[in-house]
């Protein structure tokens, strides 16, 4: 039997990749990076790097970058809440997660954004939990009804209770790390168990160009020491906070990611790190970040190719849209992104559900995007030979009346060869008229209602729930917040 080839999308030649990495290392060595965290600066000093105290600049020697690359694991095993289901982050494995940290939710009925509340986050999380092609959940929405000071931890608190899936999250304040880690430990039972079976990925975003804030650098070292994978989210905007050429932005992107990776390895050798990002092309008129633009996706696919060349786990923000409603643009930008991300073999893809750049979640879009993810998985499965011979036997005794609908071959293979999306319109025109000309967003709205109704909320052991609540209460109290929902 002839196996399928895995279709792959590539934009860079090996020569180009080598040159980009070379220039990135050159920048780190000669120009350095800015690190606004004393402890990290000290780690660099102890490793023999030159540190200018006055402007908190670190010059990273090539040897340290090479050593850090060789001690960074090339794959990470992430586990779901139960600890039974394993997900490999490495190689060409593809996992989708909703985009993270939106502030509003799109209301299908009013066709307007509204402030997201805890109930929206719960609904979103429950829905994520039952979508087949969305492998991970994320702390997708900031709950507007809870004080901003504790909102990092609060999102995780909700996510862990309402979904079984591994979670992409991150801190908003240095103080947020401890309670968040404690919650993860509460699920796993011990610090060691969490290290053996990581459940969450923490995003850390350097500020372009080449700057690690106090918060993000602290997150890197805290995660490294707790065995929690850090996902490095470089986010240069071409022509604004990074060079305008895609090549130039890639150099900066690689330099930022490599410096983050070095920080993780200095904190703990062997710490899990994911080479990631959310770069974008900058709109030269509106001053906005064109996340759904083809050039943005080109940057994404290209840095992924570089990360793979370095044998690192990968992440990108794709499958989201700059549009403001579930319109054509939502579909084509997310569709192109999801397909290209799968063809690029990206391990963690954040984006489904998101619109209005990265600030709004649409629960209906998440369900639609889930179907696009299903198509993407089908695409990368490729075409394989199912039978020997392929088809000659099927044409034996063929007559003018022959059909294939009722032959055993069809019954045997059609479920493997085809996908079965629910929301995509494949009805006749008359049916569409009779169903009151419903759009895909209308159908998604109904599907959301059905899924929430038919799928019971994921249940978490009562003792663990009590423990999570205790941690949350303590954090709220320490942050001088009197109560939360």
């Amino acid at each position, binding site marked *: 039997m002839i196996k399928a080839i895995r279709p792959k999308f590539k934009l860079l030649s090996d020569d180009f990749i080598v040159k980009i990495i070379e220039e990135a290392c050159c920048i780190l060595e000669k120009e350095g990076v800015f690190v*606004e965290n004393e402890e990290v600066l000290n780690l660099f000093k102890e490793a023999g790097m030159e540190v200018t105290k006055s402007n908190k600049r670190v010059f990273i020697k090539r040897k340290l970058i090479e050593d850090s690359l060789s001690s960074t694991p090339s794959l990470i095993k992430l586990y779901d809440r139960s600890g039974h289901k394993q997900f490999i982050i490495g190689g060409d494995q593809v996992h989708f997660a909703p985009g993270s*940290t939106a*502030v509003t939710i799109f209301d299908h009925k009013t066709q307007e954004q509204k402030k997201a509340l805890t109930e929206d986050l719960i609904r979103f999380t429950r829905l994520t939990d039952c979508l087949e092609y969305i492998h991970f959940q994320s702390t997708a929405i*900031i709950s507007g009804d809870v004080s*901003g000071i504790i*909102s990092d931890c609060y999102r995780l608190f909700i996510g862990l209770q309402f979904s079984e899936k591994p979670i992409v999250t991150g801190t*908003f*304040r240095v103080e947020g790390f401890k309670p968040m880690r404690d919650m993860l430990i509460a699920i796993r039972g011990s610090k060691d168990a969490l290290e053996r079976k990581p459940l969450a990925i923490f995003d850390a975003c350097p*500020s372009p160009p080449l*700057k690690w*804030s106090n*918060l993000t650098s602290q997150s890197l070292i805290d995660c490294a020491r707790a065995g929690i994978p850090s996902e490095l989210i470089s986010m240069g*905007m071409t*022509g*604004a*906070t990074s060079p305008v050429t895609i090549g130039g932005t890639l150099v900066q992107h690689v330099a930022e990611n490599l410096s983050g990776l070095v920080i993780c390895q200095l904190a703990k050798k062997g710490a899990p790190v994911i080479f990631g990002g959310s770069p974008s092309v*900058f709109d*030269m*008129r*509106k*001053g906005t970040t064109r996340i759904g633009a083809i050039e943005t996706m080109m940057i994404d696919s290209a840095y992924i190719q570089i990360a793979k060349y370095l044998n690192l786990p990968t992440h990108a923000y794709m499958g989201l849209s700059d549009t403001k409603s579930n319109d054509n643009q939502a579909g084509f930008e997310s569709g192109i992104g999801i397909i290209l991300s799968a063809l690029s073999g990206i391990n963690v893809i954040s984006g489904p559900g998101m619109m209005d*750049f990265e*600030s709004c979640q649409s629960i209906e879009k998440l369900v639609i995007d889930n179907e696009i993810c299903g198509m993407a998985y089908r695409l990368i499965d490729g075409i394989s030979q199912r039978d020997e011979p392929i088809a000659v036997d099927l044409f034996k005794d063929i007559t003018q009346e022959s059909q294939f609908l009722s032959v055993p071959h069809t019954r045997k293979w059609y479920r493997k060869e085809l996908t079965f999306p629910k929301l995509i319109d494949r009805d006749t025109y008359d049916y569409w008229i009779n169903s009151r000309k419903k759009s895909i967003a209308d159908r998604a709205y109904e599907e959301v209602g059905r899924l929430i109704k038919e799928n019971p909320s994921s249940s978490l052991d009562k003792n663990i729930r009590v423990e999570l609540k205790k941690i949350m209460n303590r954090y709220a109290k320490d942050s001088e917040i009197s109560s939360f929902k």
Partner: protein
Amino acid sequence: MDEEEILREIQTAVIDGNKEDSESLARQAIKNDMNLSEVIEKGYTIGIQKVGDLWQKGEYFLPELITSAECMKFAMNILIPQMQKGKIMINSLGKIIIGTIEGDIHDIGKNLVASLLSANGFQVFDLGSDVRLEYFIEKAEEEDADFICLSSLLTTTMLGQKRFIEMLKEKNLFGRFKIMVGGAPVNRKWAEDIGADGYAGNAMSAVVVAKSLTANKSKKGL
């Protein structure tokens, strides 16, 4: 070069975004003992207005807009100290304190706003990024500012805008300065809710809002 020629060259330098010429022409104007208020009004300001027209027509994009604004800023850095020395009145539409709120080190949007405000005749004090809320007030009092502009790119620091207005109320300073807010997660509704005077979704509209707030001192620019 006669004076007319210098003024024309200044306009061209601003329109073309030629920083070196813009600066050297400012020095030339001082050397020639020209009327510096006129140099600004008939040279630099006309230039920046033409840049605004090109933007409106869709011919210019942000890189041109910002480079021209910087041309203007560099020239002002040369002309204003000279005018102060000669005790020449500087025409300003108002004093503006601007910065990105503490916890936030993103400042590209704020920089765009600051550049365009200053290019359009406001005197801008840019406090940079990650600025303590108290410092905005201290600086505004020190400079007797007309406006305080708060930028936040993050949803977390956006809450600082609300806290800032509460702080002004506690200090009995609410109403003394016009407060403008902006940044990626900020919108008009938020600005209204927290009691800000103005909101702008982009740098060009920040100029329009600031000008309208200057023209109608009591009105809100939301």
